[in-house]
């Protein structure tokens, strides 16, 4: 519960930073261009501060409590409140790692190689699925992606920087 409370506070602080960025960056634009973002950013920042204040005031995140300006309705429960089982920080980091790894794979060697390798490696490492099931799924999706995008839609899928494609400019 305490971890959840801390996590929610950290998330709210990040969102507050995001809202304040829009306010201060917005002040640098002309009148018409800054009016809406500065107004929305300011209101959002105030709302986040109120939510933070209600969390600090209550001392902990209430399961059914009403925050500042809250209603009598039950709030949307967080994942840990809905599903006590299955959460572990290490597992979450592994999942995020898989996602970032897949992006890195696409960037380096493109979709054609990353898709089957990702499916097989995830299936084997995370669930110890059988080689046959992993390979079959990987082949089906490789054919689907190459067939649908490259041949049917005529979209050239990213080949990866190691195979000569350049990352687009940011």
């Amino acid at each position, binding site marked *: 519960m305490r971890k959840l409370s801390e996590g929610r506070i950290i998330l709210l602080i990040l969102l507050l930073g995001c809202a304040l960025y829009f306010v201060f960056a917005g002040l640098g634009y002309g009148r018409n261009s800054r009016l809406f973002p500065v107004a*929305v950013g300011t209101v959002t920042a105030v*709302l986040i501060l109120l939510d933070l204040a209600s969390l600090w005031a209550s001392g902990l995140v209430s399961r059914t409590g009403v925050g500042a300006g809250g209603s009598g309705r039950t709030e949307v429960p967080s994942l*840990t409140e809905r599903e006590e089982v299955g959460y572990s920080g290490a597992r979450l980091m592994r999942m995020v790692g898989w996602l970032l790894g897949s*992006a890195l794979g*696409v960037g380096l060697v493109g*979709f054609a190689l990353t898709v089957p390798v990702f*499916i097989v490696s995830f299936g084997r490492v995370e*669930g110890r699925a059988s080689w046959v099931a992993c390979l079959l799924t990987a082949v089906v999706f490789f054919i689907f992606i190459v067939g649908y995008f490259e041949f049917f839609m005529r979209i050239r*899928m990213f080949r990866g920087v190691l195979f000569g494609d350049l990352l687009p400019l940011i």
Partner: protein
Amino acid sequence: MFDGIGTAVAALAQPDVVGIVLLASVIGLVAGVLPGLGNVQAMAMALPFTFGMDRVSAIYFLSAICASATFGGSVPAILINVPGTPASAATTIEGYPMAKRGEGNRALAISATASVMGGLVGIGVLVVSIPFVKWAALLFGPPETFMLVLLGLITIAYAIQGNIIRGLAISGIGVLLSLIGYASVTGVYRFSLGSKHYLWDGIEQVAFLTGVFGLSEAIQLGMKGRVVAHAEEVALGGFHGTLQGIIDTFRYPLTFVRSSVIGVIVGIAPGVGGSVSNVVAYAMTAQISKDPLIGKGSVEGLVACESANNATYGGDAIPTLAFGIPGSLAMAILLGGLNLHGVPVGPWLMREHMEIVWVVVFGLLAGTVVSCVGGLLLARWLARITLISTSLLVPTIVVLILTGAYAIRQNFWDVVVAILSGIFGYFLTRHGFSLLPLIIGFLLGAVAEQAFIQSLHISEGSLSIFFSHPLSLLLFLGVVATGLYPVFQRLVVKGVL
């Protein structure tokens, strides 16, 4: 009222569109069967794949997926006591005991028939409401549009989040994210964090939507066990049970009508969908019914659950199509699809693109019918899909979303945006934030800014324009009333009032 209907019907007569609707129904059905997935995730994953389709086919595709997942969710709810979607939660109470008695086919037939009939009622209400909402849409100029978006955001923030402050804060973040990039209304390039190329057009909508809805769900699935569901499979019974189930549904016309009306009303209310109507309709029937089998496999209870959750889509579509305020997450994705295919969302949709409204109507109808017929025929095999290992399901979801996100603009950074959006969506959900206010803010933020700036241009900079137009003033009063309602409610609870 019927302008544009010819285009929608003619398209549905084309073999390729029929194929697209069939494929969409299968996709929705399978996604519905899989616990953890539903029409929202299926639509999010399918959205990029509509890029190569023409506008009408794409909207048929998304609408059919939207409607077909609900019945899909009822199949495992009845056969293995695991609701495939939240909209089938109450279905387990009556459906599974019937299946345990060896009446699986009968329960599935009741579910399918009630789903089709409920869907017809919902879509019927949508069709009947078209002339009225079309007339109302004509009253909307820039100030009314701005106030409408504001009212939509505040209503959804309250209805979905429960905590209006947190709901509005997250919808504010959605609005701010939508302002990144080139602002057509002022001709200025903003909030790019130093990016000179990628953020010129802002955050790619499809990458963001698919990431927030699809990848966050993939992370959640990956955090769970190895198999989506464990349950004992039950006997289906013979074909006689199917016929009996179809007849049974018509034995409770009052229950069916009452539950369908509940479904439509719940659907019209912003942000709440089949998961609420399914439970509300069942609870009301359980209180009224004299059936001794209620809670132990009652036909009447099952009719109530299934007609309500399917009627909800017609209700959901009314605010979505009339005013661009999505009634549910699925409708938010549909709005994303409309944006992707260049269809303007908001009050002017019904003025300029009535054919799209009819495409949504027929798409929802076709998806409901095809999924129910297909679901009845394939029930035995569909229930087995829940035994798929998450270790294979998760990477396939990830692969579909990443390739789809890339394919829209063929830009590698959209893949990165999808992943970051997925992680962001996961943390928001984990810490009690609803995704709907975020997405609605993101989808409607630019519309709101445009309406706001145009209003100020008309009034030469005076904010009085928002209060001098009668409809705008009415909507503003609605905003104030919705904002003050929680405070009033607290005072009542505390006994002050």
